[in-house]
């Protein structure tokens, strides 16, 4: 009894052969039928491929200078006893973090309270009144300039010697220099803070961060400490090696304040991973939806044309029934035909999607990234669509009575 069903089932090779011959009979129609599936699968593969590619790149938003900046600031925290614990950055905070692997430059920064003293360019008391300016005064360690990528238009930065001795020298920010009427330093101009003279040794043209430096008169930390009694640096600027920001961010607090690392606020750039997610999701949702829609249309196209094909091939169906095909044989053939069409569409679509991914990557100068599994699965997704789309036409074909089918031409 077990042989009976075996006997009625067509060998897979024969079934495939008949289906392929049926599909290949009208090549131009085949091309049209697969079009929807091709577009849908291509859209899906390209969307996912481009999503993967884009998230593999350092995106435009992820600019290289902010990716290497870590800022440590003194913070405060409520203690267990209800009191507020405050910490200060140590004077040598920059030296402490410089020992960490991955730190390219580090320097401290502070705002200096000058007790109401005005900053003036000339020591003359103008009888007419006012050449006084409200120029802010800041202090920095020698490493600060390198850490914020400061560029001089003239002169030089102060160094560890100036800092250690508390020399009365200043570096002017570009806008501060304009307001104070200083445009060159080779004549060793002086400015006055209150009544104290300071020699201007350099003028900063630009800096990538801490743009307040451009408005300020910058003293060495040691000078600010000895003359104005600065308590502690306000912030520590660190420029890391490319890619080391996350690591330094996790180590800096401990290096600066081993006793109370959690009291420091460490500001690090967002991890690349979180950026990736943003890039992928907003692009992908739209294109996946479009791809899905194209697939739906593609499936309907296959169903429609297979149904048309069934109606055209009524006489063939009749003949096959006459030579011994059962309803199941007929249904199987049409289902397999539409699976083949879907598979072909998926295959072409996957190829087109991979090409699109590579093409866009080339145009944008990206490294194309694509999960090979995605390209491998796509034809089978096409085949699945073919299976679903072919079911109804195949059922219709199987209900055709051979008598009706063989009548006439």
């Amino acid at each position, binding site marked *: 009894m077990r042989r009976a069903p*075996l*006997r*009625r089932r*067509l*060998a897979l*090779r*024969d079934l495939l052969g*008949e289906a392929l*011959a049926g599909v*290949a*009979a*009208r090549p131009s129609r085949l091309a049209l039928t697969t079009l929807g599936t091709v577009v849908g699968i291509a859209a899906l593969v390209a969307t996912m491929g481009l999503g993967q590619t884009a998230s593999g790149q350092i995106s435009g938003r992820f600019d290289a200078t902010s990716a290497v900046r870590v800022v440590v600031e003194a913070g405060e925290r409520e203690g267990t006893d209800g009191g507020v614990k405050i910490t200060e950055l140590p004077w040598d905070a920059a030296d402490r973090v410089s020992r960490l692997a991955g730190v390219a430059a580090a320097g401290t920064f502070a705002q200096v309270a000058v007790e109401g003293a005005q900053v003036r360019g000339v020591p003359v008391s103008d009888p007419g009144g006012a050449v006084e300016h409200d120029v802010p005064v800041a202090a920095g360690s020698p490493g600060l300039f390198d850490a914020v990528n400061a560029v001089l238009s003239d002169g030089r930065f102060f160094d560890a010697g100036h800092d250690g001795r508390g020399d009365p020298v200043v570096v002017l920010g570009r806008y501060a220099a304009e307001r104070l009427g200083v445009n060159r330093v080779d004549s060793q101009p002086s400015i006055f803070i209150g009544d104290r003279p300071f020699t201007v040794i350099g003028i900063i043209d630009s800096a990538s961060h801490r743009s307040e430096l451009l408005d300020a008169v910058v003293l060495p930390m040691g000078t600010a400490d000895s003359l104005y009694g600065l308590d502690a640096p306000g912030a520590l600027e660190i420029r890391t090696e490319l890619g080391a920001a996350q690591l330094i961010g996790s180590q800096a607090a401990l290096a600066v304040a081993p006793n109370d690392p959690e009291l420091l606020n460490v500001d690090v750039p967002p991890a690349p991973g979180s950026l990736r997610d943003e890039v992928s999701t907003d692009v992908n949702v739209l294109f996946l939806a479009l791809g899905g829609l194209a697939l739906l249309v593609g499936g309907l196209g296959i169903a429609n044309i297979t149904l048309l094909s069934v109606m055209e091939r009524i*006489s*063939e169906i*009749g*003949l*096959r*029934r*006459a*030579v*011994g*095909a*059962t*309803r*199941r*044989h007929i249904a199987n053939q049409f289902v397999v035909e539409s699976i083949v069409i879907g598979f072909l569409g998926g295959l072409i679509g996957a190829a087109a999607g991979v090409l699109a991914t590579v093409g866009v990557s080339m145009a944008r100068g990206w490294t194309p990234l694509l999960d090979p599994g995605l390209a491998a699965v796509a034809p089978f997704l096409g085949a699945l669509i073919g299976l679903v789309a072919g079911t109804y036409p195949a059922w219709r074909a199987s209900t055709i009575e*051979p*008598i009706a089918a*063989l*009548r*006439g*031409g």
Partner: protein
Amino acid sequence: MTPSEPFLSSVLQDEHSEPPSAGRNHEEQGEQDQGRRTVVEMIGVCRTFPGTPEVHAVRDINLTISEGEYLSIVGPSGSGKSTLLHLLGLLDRPSVGTYLLDGVDVSELSDAKRSELRGERIGFVFQAFHLLQHRSVLENVELSMLYRRIPRRERTKRARDTLDRVGLKHRVEFSPQTLSGGERQRVAIARALAAEPSLLLADEPTGNLDSGNADAVLDVFDKLHGEGLTLAVITHDDDVSTRADRRVRIADGTLTDEVAS
């Protein structure tokens, strides 16, 4: 015409054949009763189509075809010829009556079982040929063996042999579209023969052919008949029917035997 062939009347055969019973196996019977085995036995077959009024396409058909017989069924259009063909070819079921094909009662079989039996026992030749346009002549002939458990290699070999038998050896790889009508019909005959049927059913086989091609096709039938094939040709054309060694006439759904001239 082959007047030398022994003529067996249906009445005589009824007496000789065993009474119909469900368990009878045609192969056993074939071995016991070689040469005079009954291929087709229809007893009191009617086919009515529902409607108002109900249409009696054929009524009370009693027909026996024995192995090796060349029978023609003649009748004008609308006489029930096509219905009889469909009944004989297992394409339709009788409303009333019994139909034994090779001794197997086919009236009650399932659709799938009837399809299988049809593929094994019946070879069809249609007026409109019904060849697959996009397949080669060889593939068209192989088609009749596709739904049977015959290995691919064997199918090809038998298709080639059969094409040789109908004189189309030189057309094996051709497309049917390039063949003449007569050649197409011979391809169709080869297709029917390749499956080695018990009965070859031809429905107006020369209806679409000119007289020259029709004669060629009928000559093939004569040759096959000479080789022992059981043939039933349904036609309205007296020229075609006179080739057979036995003629029955159908009119208004009723069958009448005609003595062969």
